[in-house]
């Protein structure tokens, strides 16, 4: 038998003979039934949000129940423990959603857990640092993130970095210090992601760096989700699904800023096709204050 083309032709012909060209109807019927129960990941940032662990889901349901029954406003932020420092008591309360004046006199609202945002100034209390920023129209809040169809801005408290983004079991042994440099070094060493050179940035007088993380081209084929870091309850935080877009859309712009010794991390993602000035304006409007 001749090598190369002859074998290729034999295999190709065999595939054609073997191919089953019509799928059974039940595939469409069964898929349709599952689709009926499946919500689309509607917002641009949704596929990058952390998956809630089962206990968190239960807790969230309980919170929702309280809201429905009692009309109380409870904001649940399991990710808001400070990084690297003493454990603070879990926030049982409840930042007021009522607008409060900022130092400049402008009204500032605490980011609601969900819902469309009126244009204006908001404060994220998802981390140990209050981050105030201004958004225009078209933004929605998810509590610890805000997004449009083509941009998202999410705030993270990062206690650990996965040593291997493809291995959710790899974070446990990874000690992470509380500085900006510690986090940059951990991300740089992370297997199966590529990190750009850090660029120094200053936000509201606070120094930090901006890096871009993207799935490594040499990652295992079996790696269908990359998890960058954990959240304080130990579950996976920011994640990338490589099948969700072309490689140039899978770049995660990560900003890491030191605010008087507290580290705040945010991811400012935008679609390549979006108006880049939008998210730049939001970042430019930021003020940061350690709580």
């Amino acid at each position, binding site marked *: *038998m001749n090598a190369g083309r002859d074998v290729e032709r034999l295999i*190709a012909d*065999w595939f054609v*003979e073997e191919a089953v060209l019509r799928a*059974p109807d039940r595939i469409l019927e069964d898929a*349709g039934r599952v689709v009926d129960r499946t919500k689309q990941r509607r917002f641009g940032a*949704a*596929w990058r949000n952390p998956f809630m662990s089962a206990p968190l889901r239960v807790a969230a349901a309980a919170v929702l129940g309280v809201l429905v029954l009692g009309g109380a406003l409870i904001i649940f932020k399991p990710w808001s423990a400070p990084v690297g420092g003493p454990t603070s008591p879990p926030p049982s309360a409840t930042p007021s959603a009522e607008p409060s004046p900022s130092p400049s006199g402008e009204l500032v609202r605490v980011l609601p857990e969900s819902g469309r945002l009126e244009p204006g100034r908001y404060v994220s209390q998802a981390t140990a640092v209050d981050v105030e920023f201004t958004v225009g129209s078209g933004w929605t809040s998810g509590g610890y993130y805000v997004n449009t169809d083509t941009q998202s801005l999410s705030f993270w408290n990062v206690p650990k970095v996965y040593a291997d983004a493809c291995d959710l079991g790899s974070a446990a042994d990874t000690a992470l210090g509380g500085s900006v440099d510690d986090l940059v070094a951990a991300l740089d060493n992370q297997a199966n992601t590529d990190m750009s050179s850090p660029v120094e940035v200053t936000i509201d007088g606070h120094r930090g760096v901006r890096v871009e993380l993207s799935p490594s081209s040499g990652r295992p*084929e079996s790696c269908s989700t990359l998890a960058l870091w954990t959240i304080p309850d130990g579950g996976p935080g920011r994640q990338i699904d490589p099948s*969700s877009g072309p490689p140039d859309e899978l770049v995660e712009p990560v900003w890491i800023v030191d605010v008087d010794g507290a580290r705040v991390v945010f991811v400012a993602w935008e679609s390549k096709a979006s108006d880049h000035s939008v998210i730049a304006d939001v970042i430019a409007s930021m003020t940061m204050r350690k709580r």
Partner: protein
Amino acid sequence: MNAATTETRPAIPASVMLEHVARARAGDREAFDLIAASVVDRLYSIARLVLRDADLAEDAVQDALVRCWRDLPMLRDDANFDSWVRRLLMNAITDEFRRAGRRRTAISLLRLDPPAPDPAEDVATREQLARGFQRLTLDHRKVLVLRLYLGLSLEETATTLGIPAGTAKSRLHYAIEAMRVALEADARPPIQEVSA
């Protein structure tokens, strides 16, 4: 079953497909059903060839379709729909293959379709091909089917599998070589014992 005798579902013209994808992305279920009906035959033929098992292939395609609906709003460029959905299928195939675990060999042997009546030599070659293919890893099966059945370029194959083009090329080379060796081994006459 020789599926060449079975009619496939009608394909949707590319321009209309783009329109359906945009509508489905916005949550239009009817548009999604049209898309699903348009791609299901192709996805199934791929899954069936790679997995060599009807049940696993059905599950993989169903899973890929559900993922397609769920994640469609995150598709950045509707023109990339074909390669994107192929990639969803490849991930679903991997999941099904793992889920089936050790049972798959026995199952697939039981479920191999009876060959159509062919001259004896052709039958023998088909059996050799089937045996050789069955021995390949899932990664090598995928690259063979994408390249030699779908006719994708190396770059398209690499994109579909989420691997560098160089890796796709080396996997293809290895897979073809493994198939060649399998064919040659089967064709070789049995070793004769030589007595002094």
